[in-house]
Every structure is written in structure tokens, then in C-alpha cells.
């Protein structure tokens, strides 16, 4: 079927471009791609899209962890604890969405 062939060609081209971005993230892009694929409406995600999602996640986690760490320092502790993260979520607008997510 013509439609399937098109998709196959596109996938081939996307795979060829994939190598450039593979080593540029700390979090594994393959796992991110697996998560994206869980959504059955999705046919494909370009390697650049996967790269961006991975990179954004890294940026977010970095920001979140550092914000929590500020509380650790403020309370003169050496260990970053769960309550530091909870506090960051409660007091920062940017992280407010995390309150609604069942994280346990």
C-alpha cells in the first residue's frame, strides 16, 4: 500500500539522521522514544523531536533539583530530602502542576 511505503521511507530517512543527536543527552533517548510510542496515536517521532523532549526533561529536572537544593542549604542540611522537593513544588508556580500528579 502506498501509504505504508511512504511511512517506511520516512522512517529510513529519520534513522539516518538519528546518529547526530544520539550522544548529546545524558538521559537515554531510546527510552524516551519508547515512552512516546506508548501513546498509540503516534506513528513516528523524528529523532530531533525525541532529542528535544529528552533535553527538555533534563533541563526541567536540573531546575527542579537545584530549587529543592536551595532549601537544603537554607536549613543547613547536607542531604537533599523529599521535603525539599515537596516545598519547591508548593512554593514555586512553575512546579505547581506536579501537585496534581500522583507521584507515589
Amino acid at each position, binding site marked *: 500500500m502506498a501509504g505504508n511505503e511512504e*511511512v517506511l521511507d*520516512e522512517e529510513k530517512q*529519520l534513522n539516518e*539522521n538519528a546518529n*547526530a*543527536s544520539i550522544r*548529546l543527552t*545524558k*538521559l*537515554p533517548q531510546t*527510552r*524516551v522514544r*519508547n*515512552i*512516546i510510542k*506508548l*501513546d498509540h*496515536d*503516534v*506513528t*513516528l*517521532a*523524528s529523532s*530531533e*523531536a525525541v*532529542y*528535544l*523532549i*529528552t*533535553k*527538555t*526533561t*533534563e*533541563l*526541567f*529536572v*536540573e531546575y*527542579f*533539583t*537545584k530549587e*529543592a*537544593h536551595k532549601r*537544603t542549604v537554607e536549613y543547613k542540611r*547536607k*542531604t*537533599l*530530602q*523529599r521535603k*525539599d*522537593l515537596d516545598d519547591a513544588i508548593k512554593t514555586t508556580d*512553575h512546579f505547581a*502542576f*506536579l501537585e496534581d*500528579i500522583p*507521584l*507515589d
Partner: protein
Amino acid sequence: MTDSDEESANLPRSTIQKFIKEVVPGVRVSNDAKDLISNICNEFVHMVSSESNSICSQKNKKTIFPEHVIEALKNLGFEGYVGELKKVLGDLKTEKEERKKCSKKLEKSGFSLTELEKQQKELFEKAKEEQAREELMEWNQLVEEEKAAKHAQSSKAL
């Protein structure tokens, strides 16, 4: 979902923990804090993928592209990251172009990779020979100069 399904659709805890160590080096992080951060990572990816997918479908495309991700982030309230992401995407494109140039050069030369490697080997061999020849000449010259100097010395002594 089987266990292996669950594993493959989650970011590996160990990698996330390593990443956390790099973000706050020298800081101890409690286990429940690490767990929470891991969960947040996975949730975040789900959230952004889902939104990107919606935008992709809305535009009647079959493949999620960077522009869909960028729009998704804006919709989710993460415009702050867009600037940095556009920059890294630009860097990525530059790297791809460099690679394309390199492979085009290869194609243009008309030679295959094996042929080019052969030529390179021959050039190296040639260079080695030339250098050996030069060194031999220099050495011979030195020997001649030494001889001449000794001769001069001995004739003075007489």
C-alpha cells in the same frame, strides 16, 4: 504490562540518579527524594509527548517534529525553555551539515573509502621514505664535519 514492558517504558533509575549527582555534586540525596525525581522525570516525558502528539494530530501529520514539541512546551507553560532548546537544535543542525559536507567531499572525490585509504597509506609511506632520506643526508653531513674537525685537530697537534 509485563515487567520488561514497564522497564523499557521508563527512564532507568540509575541514569537519573547519576544525572542528579551531576546537577548537585557533593550533595547527598535521600532515597525517597531520588524516587520522587525519577517519577517526575517519567511523568514529564509522558506529559510533553502527549501534548506534542495532540498538536501533531491536529496538524494532520504522522510524525512528531520539533515544532510540535516547541508548541507543546508553550502550551504547557514551559516557554522559558524554548530559547535554549532552539539554540541546541540549531547546534544539532550545524553538526549534521558538517557531517553532510564531509560525506559529500568523499563522494566528490570520486573514490571509494577503501581507495582513499589506500591513497593515504601510500602518501604516508612516501613521506616516511623522504624523511628517512633527509635524516640520512643530515647524518652523513655530521659525520663528514666530525671527520674534518678531527683532521684539523690532528694536523694542528703535529
